[in-house]
């Protein structure tokens, strides 16, 4: 510890802290532009110059470490003079366009110019002009305003993991740019907008739409990945204009992924359902809430009486709130049906009977940064959980070994120690290799041991095992691809064993905003009830859909759509989507920002939020709709007045941590089959901007999202007699669509990667099932679909 004096105040600070940190601790503000607590020190704006006793010239506070007995003056004549001069220099080339600048009102340069600048400028000469560049659909650039603080450059290098911005040229000609005007592609790019202290980088979707002082900040929780980033919604006249991060070091720090930041655009899509609708005699008509609800309730009741409650099924989106999921379960239980599920993209439910708690991350989000050894299984982490990928990147920078077992070799933008990239049907084999290699050091569980007979351990698997047995903090993490995999139970059990043998924490990465919450709220099949896979494989007579866009949210969109044919479907949905093709009643529900509720993130932390704006049109919060349905069925326990009352009822009084758990009970019937080399397999992971209904309708994000293509190894292209960019016919089950073929030599052999969640690929079959690819006969561009 060092005893120093700042502006006459005695402060004790840790050795090695900088003057700016010490000042912060002492409550003294030092102006700055280039300094940011999460970025490296650049000391290039010079705004933080302060006077230090016995130092000849003013020193930059951000880059000067304190020493015992240092006396610092932040407001002395010398310091003020230095700050004033720096400000005068900064303003020389800065345009006076604040009235038309989007940053106006929240601009650090504007604020500090008032606080530390002179009244007028002595500069009479011509100002420099920097031509604008196009940074893509999310970031607007006005580079004449740039003061070269290089925060955006350092963010790319240090946080996003890819340097896309750089400072080109020199001296007065230096300018921030991307390489030959390329668009910024990072999934975290929006943070550069926040970091930019001036109006050089601003939000393109928000541009010219509102002034910051007209906007009200409302706290909320991001509705996409399992992290549950804390956001502030900026609202004006009942409309969300912008989404910004709220600082929370335990969750998202000061960052936000682009998906969480820009998805609000989807709220204002043309596809929103504004009024309840009923289909009568094949014709849709808008109607009153009362009519729609009564029609739905009466019809469901009739079906229940005629064919039995087990013919009713409820499918919910894991982005629904705890309260909604809880009420849905309660409603179904009241109706006598145990058929409830939220795991639409799962295909293997055989671990259900052995689950002991809600699958979760296995450790705190913040502690990911302290990991020394990681085994990441079946996860395209950057698109699944952009900010968790960032946390792991920081861990790797500290020296952590990141080991990967996956079906595709996507760049994680950090050093990967060892990787096993295999076809989906060989994923369990690959993981078994790691377990067997770990078993060379410790005894494998008797349940798993028989699976390992005949497994040949590769050199890489042995290296992964060796890596996992060193280091202090270790984690084994299961990603979305593993969870959607047709042999998920086996992967889970093997991963659990790998974690046990290596002494690592075992984590399952929550797929959606409320995946953990959905387990806790009980949105799962009751004993004897059907899970999502069974409900769609053996069609029910009636379905209640909560916030799902079945064709794009299911493991097998084709099968899901087939199940809907001939069934009575009540869809609680914020969007019309394809529901008008198969549903019978459409009930408009509130979307993100319009709804109060609770999400439980992948760490098991419940975060509640209130509605920030009123729902669009006649839409109502889904929990209220479910409550009314419950009353129409004359069920008990549907009289809650507010979401808070529901929250405590849904989550109970015991600490959530007691209900979390990834370990499976022993006794599972495990079989590890050999990969079947003969058929082509689809790698159908969900695209980063295709995860849920809201983000799919966010126009700017969709511009960032590449159209799906049929990616394969060049040997497969050659084998099928195809060439790159050629239009090919991709078939799964009865569906055939036209896609352009693309070459990716990092893909395993025998695999075709066709992203899921896109409109074009919605009606293909299972995400990791067999797929056929052939030359297109005609050159028809539109997708043909032949329903069964």
């Amino acid at each position, binding site marked *: 510890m060092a005893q120093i004096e700042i502006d006459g105040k005695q402060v004790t600070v840790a050795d090695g802290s900088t003057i700016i940190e010490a000042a912060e601790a002492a409550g003294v503000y030092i102006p700055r532009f280039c300094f940011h607590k999460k970025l490296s020190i650049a000391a290039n704006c010079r705004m933080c110059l302060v006077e230090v006793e016995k130092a000849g010239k003013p020193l930059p506070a951000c880059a000067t470490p304190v020493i015992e007995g240092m006396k610092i003056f932040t407001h002395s004549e010398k310091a003020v003079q230095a700050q004033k001069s720096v400000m005068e220099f900064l303003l020389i080339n800065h345009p006076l366009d604040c009235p038309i600048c989007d940053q106006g009102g929240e601009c650090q340069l504007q604020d500090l110019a008032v606080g530390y600048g002179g009244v007028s400028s002595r500069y009479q000469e011509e100002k420099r002009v920097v031509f604008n560049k196009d940074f893509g659909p999310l970031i607007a650039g006005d580079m004449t305003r740039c003061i070269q603080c290089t925060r955006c450059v350092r963010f790319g290098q240090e946080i996003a993991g890819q*340097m896309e911005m750089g400072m080109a040229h*020199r001296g007065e000609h230096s300018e921030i740019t991307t390489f030959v005007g390329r668009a910024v592609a990072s999934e975290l790019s929006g943070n550069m907008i926040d970091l930019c202290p001036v109006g050089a980088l601003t939000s393109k979707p928000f541009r010219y739409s509102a002034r910051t002082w007209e906007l009200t900040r409302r706290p909320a929780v991001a509705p996409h990945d399992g992290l549950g980033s804390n956001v502030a919604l900026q609202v004006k006249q009942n409309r969300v204009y912008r989404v910004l991060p709220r600082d929370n070091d335990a969750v998202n720090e000061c960052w936000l992924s682009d998906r969480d930041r820009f998805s609000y655009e989807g709220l204002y899509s043309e596809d929103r359902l504004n009024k309840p609708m009923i289909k009568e005699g094949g014709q849709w008509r808008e109607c009153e809430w009362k009519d729609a609800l009564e029609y739905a309730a009466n019809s469901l009741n009739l079906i229940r009486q005629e064919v039995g409650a087990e013919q009713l099924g409820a499918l919910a989106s894991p982005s629904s709130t705890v309260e909604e999921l809880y009420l849905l379960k309660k409603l179904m239980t009241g109706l006598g049906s145990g058929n409830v599920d939220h795991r639409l993209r799962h295909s293997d439910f055989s671990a259900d009977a052995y689950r002991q708690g809600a699958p979760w991350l296995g450790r705190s989000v913040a502690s990911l940064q302290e990991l020394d050894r990681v085994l990441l299984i079946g996860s395209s982490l950057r698109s699944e959980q952009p900010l968790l990928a960032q946390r792991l990147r920081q861990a790797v920078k500290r020296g952590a070994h990141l080991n990967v077992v996956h079906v595709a070799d996507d760049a994680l933008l950090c050093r990967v120690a060892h990787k096993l990239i295999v076809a989906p049907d060989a994923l369990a084999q690959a993981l078994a290799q790691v377990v067997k290699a770990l078993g060379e050091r410790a005894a494998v569980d008797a349940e798993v041991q028989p699976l390992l007979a005949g497994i040949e351990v590769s050199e890489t698997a042995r290296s992964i095992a060796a890596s996992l047995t060193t280091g202090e903090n270790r984690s084994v993490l299961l990603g979305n691809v593993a969870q959607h995999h047709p042999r998920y139970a086996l992967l889970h059990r093997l991963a659990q064993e790998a974690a046990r043998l290596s002494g690592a924490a075992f984590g399952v990465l929550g797929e959606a905003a409320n995946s953990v919450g959905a387990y806790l709220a009980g949105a799962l099949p009751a004993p004897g009830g059907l899970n999502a896979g069974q409900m769609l494989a053996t069609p029910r007579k009636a379905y209640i859909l909560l916030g799902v866009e079945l064709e794009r949210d299911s493991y097998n969109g084709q099968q899901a759509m087939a199940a809907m044919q001939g069934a009575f479907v009540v869809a609680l949905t914020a969007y019309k989507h394809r529901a008008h093709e198969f549903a019978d009643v459409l009930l408009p529900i509130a979307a993100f920002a319009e709804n109060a509720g609770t999400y439980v993130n992948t760490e098991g932390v419940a975060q509640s939020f209130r509605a920030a704006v009123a729902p669009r049109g006649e839409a109502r919060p889904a929990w209220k709709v479910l409550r009314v349905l419950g009353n129409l069925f004359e069920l008990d326990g549907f009289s809650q007045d507010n979401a808070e009352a529901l929250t405590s009822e849904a989550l109970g009084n015991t600490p959530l941590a007691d209900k979390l758990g990834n370990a499976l009970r022993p006794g599972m019937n495990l079989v590890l089959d050999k990969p079947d080399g003969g058929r082509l397999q689809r790698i159908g992971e969900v695209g980063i901007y295709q995860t849920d209904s809201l983000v799919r309708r966010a126009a700017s994000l969709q511009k960032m999202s590449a159209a799906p293509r049929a990616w394969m190894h060049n040997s497969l292209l050659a084998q099928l007699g195809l060439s790159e960019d050629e239009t090919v016919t991709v078939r799964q089950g009865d569906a055939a669509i036209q896609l352009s073929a693309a070459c990716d030599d990092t893909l395993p052999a025998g695999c075709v990667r066709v992203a899921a969640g896109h409109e074009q690929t919605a009606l293909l079959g299972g995400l990791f099932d067999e797929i056929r690819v052939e030359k297109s006969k005609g050159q028809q561009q539109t997708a043909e679909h032949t329903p069964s």
Partner: protein
Amino acid sequence: MLSPAALQQIDREVAKYPPQRKESAVMSALRIAQTERGWLAPETIEFVANYLEMPPIAAFEVASFYNMYDLSPVGRYKLTVCTNLSCTLMGAESVAGHLKQKLGIGFNETTPDGKFTLKEGECMGACGDGPVALVNNVRMCGKLTPAEADRILAELE
């Protein structure tokens, strides 16, 4: 993009640094690439960046910072006249003016026949010989006068 000989030269530069620090060789690699291709097109810079496993923008930062790298095509002979203080005091402006008039081009321009490009240079560390000029980044000509400049031009004809 680059010949095996050029790549071999780059490899020799890369070998001077630790294996994880390939990008340390970026300046030499860009020089070698420029010598071979005549100038540094974006594709050339990107090739060098990929070869050294660094982001293209980082290589571009270097290429655009130093003015001996040419980001646009230059003539067969690039004459870079230093116009910093010492050379200017010794008459760099009259030498530059003479060259401009003789070649009929200004700074950063190339003669229509593609033979000469005139550039304004920064201090080359040879102030004692000022005014100085560089021919194609490698040949230094000192104590320039208009007459001496004519002699050099004649030599390059």
